[in-house]
């Protein structure tokens, strides 16, 4: 299968400029600099690539929102990778940082941003070092700086390490944090494309999105869109974790059947396919899919969404029959309670409430009414918050009750898990 973001990952010292260049690196940049910014944006639009950070917003369209005024513009790479289960960006940062840098220079050139930042999750200490070393190499080689490849284009790039808050992965929370403030998401509108970092128009993209850009420029948007399926073009890295025999990051074309991903790539379910209980298909905030759905669903934005969940960041969390759903979701609820920035009332109060009810049920102190109360509280959070974290906290609870209500009922009635 065609690989894009991980295609050089197996090479020895793939993180160095020398190896990256010998594998054809920075040719896309050279080509891009002969094109106009709008041509590049059109090419990216043609590729159909959607943001790989979670929301799946078409990248080319996002770039085209940047106004053509004379304000300073910024490009920000979201390398916060905080969504539980997700670890796909990490391997890009570790092994092919130059491919990300090349993608960022092209993106910066396309939207006339002369400054870029890579906001790296605080815990990715070694990764930040790797990326910094690659940036240093790129400066020395003239890919970054005042005169990119001698073409009179300016692009500066800097790494910023986060402090370890999930909410700083939310794009406007990230911007606040980058500006040195408390990481609290901003109200939208205005959107970052108009008023973003330091008040300037800002493009913010996920690591994987930006790392795909060089190949799109080199081979053309049409080539990229020939991969994958309609409206979910290209390749995607799925970070498969949980009860599979070979957990890991797999870059595959979008639209691959989930069953194929799990059985053929991830080495199959522990104890065989029939031991599968459910799959969380797109990171912690996506509702869990039951085994029945997993039999047939394909891994693309539309199919997963039709199945009632989200492709999200592509973190596939596999749960076998040994898992108590109540316990699993209680743990997630605790995560969201801990990570809520506390700014808006429904999320600040609601995540705490959800988590406490889940905890109670898990500890066998729940009552029947608690299950509907969970649905009601989750519903009351949804759609009323400043950022999507509130929804993200609500959805797994709602999804789990919808799919596995009997386990919740068992818990409140018997005071213990249905699974042994």
């Amino acid at each position, binding site marked *: 299968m065609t690989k894009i973001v991980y295609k050089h990952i197996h090479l020895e010292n793939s993180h160095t400029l020398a190896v990256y260049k010998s594998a054809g690196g920075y040719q896309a940049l050279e080509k891009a600099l002969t094109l106009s910014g709008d041509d590049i944006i059109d090419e990216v639009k043609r590729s159909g690539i959607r943001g790989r950070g979670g929301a799946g917003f078409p990248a080319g369209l996002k770039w085209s929102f940047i106004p053509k005024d004379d304000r300073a513009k910024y490009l920000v790479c979201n390398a916060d990778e905080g969504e539980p289960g997700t670890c796909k960006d990490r391997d890009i940062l570790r092994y092919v940082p130059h491919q990300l840098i090349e993608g960022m220079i092209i993106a910066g050139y396309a939207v006339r941003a002369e400054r870029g930042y890579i906001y790296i999750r605080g815990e990715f200490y070694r990764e930040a070092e790797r990326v910094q070393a690659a940036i240093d190499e790129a400066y020395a080689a003239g890919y970054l700086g005042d005169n990119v490849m001698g073409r009179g284009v300016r692009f500066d790039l800097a790494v910023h390490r986060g402090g370890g808050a999930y909410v700083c992965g939310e794009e406007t929370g990230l911007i606040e944090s980058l500006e040195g403030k408390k990481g609290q998401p901003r109200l939208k509108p205005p959107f970052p494309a108009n008023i973003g970092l330091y008040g300037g128009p800002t493009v913010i993209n996920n690591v994987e999105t930006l790392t795909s850009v060089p190949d799109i420029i080199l081979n053309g948007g049409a080539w990229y869109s020939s991969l994958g399926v309609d409206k979910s073009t290209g390749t995607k890295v799925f970070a498969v974790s949980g009860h599979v025999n070979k957990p890991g990051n797999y870059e595959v074309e979008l639209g691959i059947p989930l069953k194929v991903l799990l059985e053929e790539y991830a080495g199959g379910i522990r104890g065989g396919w029939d031991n599968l209980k459910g799959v969380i298909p797109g990171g912690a905030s996506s509702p869990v899919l039951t085994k029945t759905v997993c039999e047939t669903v394909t891994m693309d934005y539309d199919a997963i969404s039709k199945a009632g969940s989200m492709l999200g960041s592509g973190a596939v969390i596999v749960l076998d029959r040994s898992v108590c759903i109540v316990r699993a979701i209680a743990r997630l609820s605790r995560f969201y309670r801990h990570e809520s920035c506390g700014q808006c009332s429904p999320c*600040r109060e609601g995540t705490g*409430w959800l988590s*406490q009810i889940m905890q109670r049920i898990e500890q066998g102190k729940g009552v029947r009414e608690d299950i509907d109360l969970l649905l009601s509280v989750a519903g009351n959070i949804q759609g009323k918050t400043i950022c999507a974290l509130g929804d993200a906290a609500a959805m797994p609870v709602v999804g789990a009750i919808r799919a596995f209500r009997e386990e919740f009922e068992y818990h409140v009635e018997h005071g213990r898990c249905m699974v042994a």
Partner: protein
Amino acid sequence: MPTLIIDGKEISVQPGATIMEAARLLGVYIPHFCYHPQLSIAGNCRMCLVEVEKMPRPVVSCAMPVSEGMVVKTDSDMVRKGRQAVMEFLLINHPLDCPVCDQGGECTLQDLAMKYGPDRSRYHEHKRHERDYDLGPLLETEMNRCIHCTRCIRFTDEVAGAPEMGAVYRGDHMQVGPYTSRPLTSELTGNLAELCPVGALNNKPFHFQARGWELKNSDGICAHCAVGCHQRVDHLNNEVKRVMSRRCPEINQTWLCDKGRFAYDGLTRERLQQPMVRSEESNQLVPASWAVALDRAADLLKRFKPEEVAGLASESGQGAEELYAFQEFLRHVVGTPHLDHRLRQRDFSADEVPLTRADLSMNTPLSQLGKADVILLIGFEPRYETPLLNLRLRQATLAGARAFAVHPRQLQHNLANLTQLVVRPGDEVAFLDGLLQELGSSDGHRSALAEAWQKAKQPVLLLGNYAIHHPQAEAIRRCAVALLERVGALSTQWNGFNRVAGRGNAAAAQDLGVVPHRDPGYRRLERHGRNAQQILQGAANGEIRLLLLLGCDPSIEAVDTSLARTALAKSVVIYIGAQQTPAAEMAAVVLPGLANGERPATLTNLEGRAQRSDMAVMGPVQAKEDWRILRSLSDRFAKPLPYNTREALQARMAAADHRYALDGLEAGELSAACDHKPVTAGLPLATVATSKDGLLLVVEPPFFQDDAIARRSTILAQLTLGRSALGTLRINPEDAGKANIGDGQRVRMICGERNVECIASLDANVPAQVVFGDMGQRAALLQDLCDWDGGFPQVSLVGL
């Protein structure tokens, strides 16, 4: 202008306006907690949800800009459900202790819970407990009640410019509170209690004093400085319980400063309760009936030739009615030309030129100050003279204006962009003259100030207390006018000349002729009477035999207090006023008057806006309105004052000066500001002198103690200005080192024959070779060292 429909009503608003703002214009109420018209948008409470057609989710109206053709519903099913959800979230961790909460009865959370809250709780988990904080003498905290709306944080950051509040931790552990464990330092702290939508930040002096619904309210105008903020005075059983702001976009927006809000407890302290006369046998003041006291006063007044009688009035404690009656009584009943209110003024040379109101007050309305692009403060510390005027300046600097201050020391300020030019006392005229020369010359290197001034489109210049009471005040004023004239900023489109006479009702005293050279309405007199200095000098040397004092005490306030004491001792004093003061103790007759808040009054603010203030509480039983005292006294003369009612007096006042024609104007309604002639330009500039050598003393009025009521407030007494304690002598550490004086040490300050003992405090903001002290401190009356004509006293210090 986009047009939208809210609840079936159509409205067009400015592009960029929010749905909330449009709804407010339409008079449609949308429930809210975090939204505040004077603060930035936080959008965090989520209470203001509305439904917008074609949008799948409810939107927060406070943050959503309107767009053409929007159809908004503020009370649909979706909206009600959304608000119920938000309300429940806000209540789950709330203690619901309304019965013991000061906010009870006037709480947004309580009110909206009645409308949208569930009748029983579905929340059976742990309720959060928050710690409380010591925020100083003005605020009581009960942080369990906090709903995290961040109004307090935004206020301190944005409005007060003292970013001392913040939110730490996140999620449901988020804690709102001060960053440090020190009390808040802002002079606007009291606003936090008013703007907190719940009972988390409470007015400490009001804590447990009354329930909101028991209180009666009166519409007042603050007279503790001349901004003239609109207040609501809350009282119960004839006692003022608290003071709240009333919204007035032109003046105070929605704020009050702490002086205006908390001075009220000084109202009832040290009051004169009944008329008194000095007994011939015991030489003591003894209580008397009104008839006896008035007869005695009239006898005394008649005992001397009219020219031997003089009057001095307070500019901070009296209504326009009192001031008008005072001058009329002296001029037309007694027949003396000697009267003044300018006890703090040193330079009276301006009395010789025909100045008008425009020359003596502000010409840029408060509401326009925010539009200034260059601000020049001369002898003006706006933050601690006129706090709410300062907010306008701060707004201007936040919007990009540059500010410059010419002052004898570093200002305490919260302006965003201020360049401080410290000029030695006495060198101001030379400095301004230099600036004028710079503007005139085309060559060479210009100072940043000259550069900015030359380029300014809408400059404002403000003369403050120090400039007005400077020994060369008139020369400074003329330089100021010339500076503005140079850049064309004295036109009808933009007049940047502002003389900020910042005390109480000083503008009314000017308008109504409580000066020796003008009648009411700025009609100049042929024959000038004596000014404040000459009156006291006359009294000291026997040319003036009787002093009629209206609410003022020269022995505390005058430029030269030792002269004032001699004057009071040598003359017969009739004291009309509300408070016990040393001057009243020396009087032959004491006639107890009423204070602001105890009678209706007309107060003129520094923009020249005459405003009516209502009565809130009754004063001491026997005390009378001061104008009525004068009226009764005049009955004992051939030509009594021709009015028996306040209305008749007001009509007469209005006839003398049309700016006081406020017919039908209720308290709280706004009159016109700045109805002025143009500023007088082209007067000759003074020749430049230089300052004296040696250590110079500057005496400054202490902000929180600058009028009779504030001085007696125990609440205000707990506040400092973020500087050394009241009554200390502030000295540069190097000067102190040279004189071998340590911080907190007792020193004797000597000037010629005179000397005063006081406590030194070292202050790095004080420049070398100048010391600063507070005016009117009974423990150490620094004005004892000030000879009226001698300029800034040259002093020496001896450590004790």
